């Protein structure tokens, strides 16, 4: 089945504040969408709505394909060595021989709590990569990453799009990939 992600007339309310309204999107295989906007305009909330973790104030979301979410919470056990923490998700996802990025081989024995912000982000990306969902939702995927790692994320998303995946990413930085759609949340502010 082909992956698809569509949203119709989404409105999002946090507390008593309306963050955005009237937002619609329709994504198919190979589409990459960058959601941009100032802090507090609802980028993360939109991604959580698309993921089904947050109920939209109005509107509907329709998804075909498994969802993978990368946000500021890495969902890795702090006290475990990184390799063991990632193995838990491989077991949940039923991946017997998961691919691990070569540049993280020497981090696999380091407990997650000792990893830096950027290393955590890369670890969470490795978790997402071995989950192999059709739809990627990346919330600030470039935060804390060095220049090489930023290029790597661009390459990962490119591979994912060539494999007919969908990617929605929220970032205020320019994303290192050509030919991506941009959605500016300022247009949907109430």
């Amino acid at each position, binding site marked *: 089945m082909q992956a698809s992600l569509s949203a119709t007339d989404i409105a999002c309310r946090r507390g008593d504040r309306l963050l955005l309204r009237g937002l619609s999107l329709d994504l198919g295989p190979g589409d990459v969408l960058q959601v941009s906007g100032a802090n507090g305009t609802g980028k993360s909330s939109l991604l959580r709505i698309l*993921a*089904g*973790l*947050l*109920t939209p104030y109005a509107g509907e979301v329709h998804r075909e394909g*498994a*969802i*993978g*979410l990368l*946000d500021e*919470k*890495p*969902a*890795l*056990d*702090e*006290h*475990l060595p990184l390799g063991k923490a990632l193995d*838990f*998700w491989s*077991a*949940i*996802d039923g991946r017997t021989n998961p691919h691990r990025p070569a540049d993280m081989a020497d981090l696999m024995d380091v407990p997650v709590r000792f990893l830096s912000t950027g290393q955590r982000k890369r670890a969470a990306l490795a978790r997402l990569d071995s*989950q192999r*969902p059709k739809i990627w939702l990346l919330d600030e995927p470039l935060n804390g990453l060095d220049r090489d790692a930023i290029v790597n994320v661009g390459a990962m998303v490119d591979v994912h799009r060539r494999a007919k995946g969908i990617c929605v990413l929220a970032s205020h930085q320019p994303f290192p990939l050509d030919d991506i759609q941009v959605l500016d949340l300022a247009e949907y502010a109430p």
Partner: protein
Amino acid sequence: MSSTFATLLTRDLRNLLTGAHGAGAALPLLFFLSIAMLYPFAVGPNPTVLAKTGGGVVWIAALLAAILPLDGLISRDLETGFFDQFKLRGMSEEWVMSARLLAHWLSFGPLLILACFPAAALLALEQETVRLLVLGLLAGTPGLAAVGIIIAALTASLRSGAALAGLLLIPLALPILIFGAGALGRNDPATLGFVGAISLLLVAIAPFAAGASIRAAREG
């Protein structure tokens, strides 16, 4: 599906036993034993008094010891995004909470029941009292674990959730204590049937109540 449950249970049990998620298994156990140890110092070494009141003290110690693992039981995974990732993989909150409930009970229930024997020796309890205590705790600790899971999930997103959890557990665990300790006073094993019934009810409700709390916390 069953292998997923086993994977969840293994992780939960490891985290709860080692104390990666809060107090660990040793702290409730030591707390329980220290109450049994301190009690004779407080009321005096008279064996008649100890044998008459000791069983009730063991029940109070067990109830209070069940509060200790609540800190971090649910909140840690809520903060680190585990529940979001489970949800995205199509695993229901109820399913995840069932594994957590079983792991939570395994991490303190059997240990408390075993610790009854040294506690009984410290309090000079009679053999019949020990038998009723062990049976009572066997019936009652799953209920304490269930109340604990519900409260930990309800308070997971609050800043001072752990302190509140302790206060909330006491009234909710009161029926278990009344019937569990009541069986000792009346020397009547049939009363333990009520403890078992309350426990079963709580265990049946807990995954749904805790699951709903996680969903509510996500929307908040």
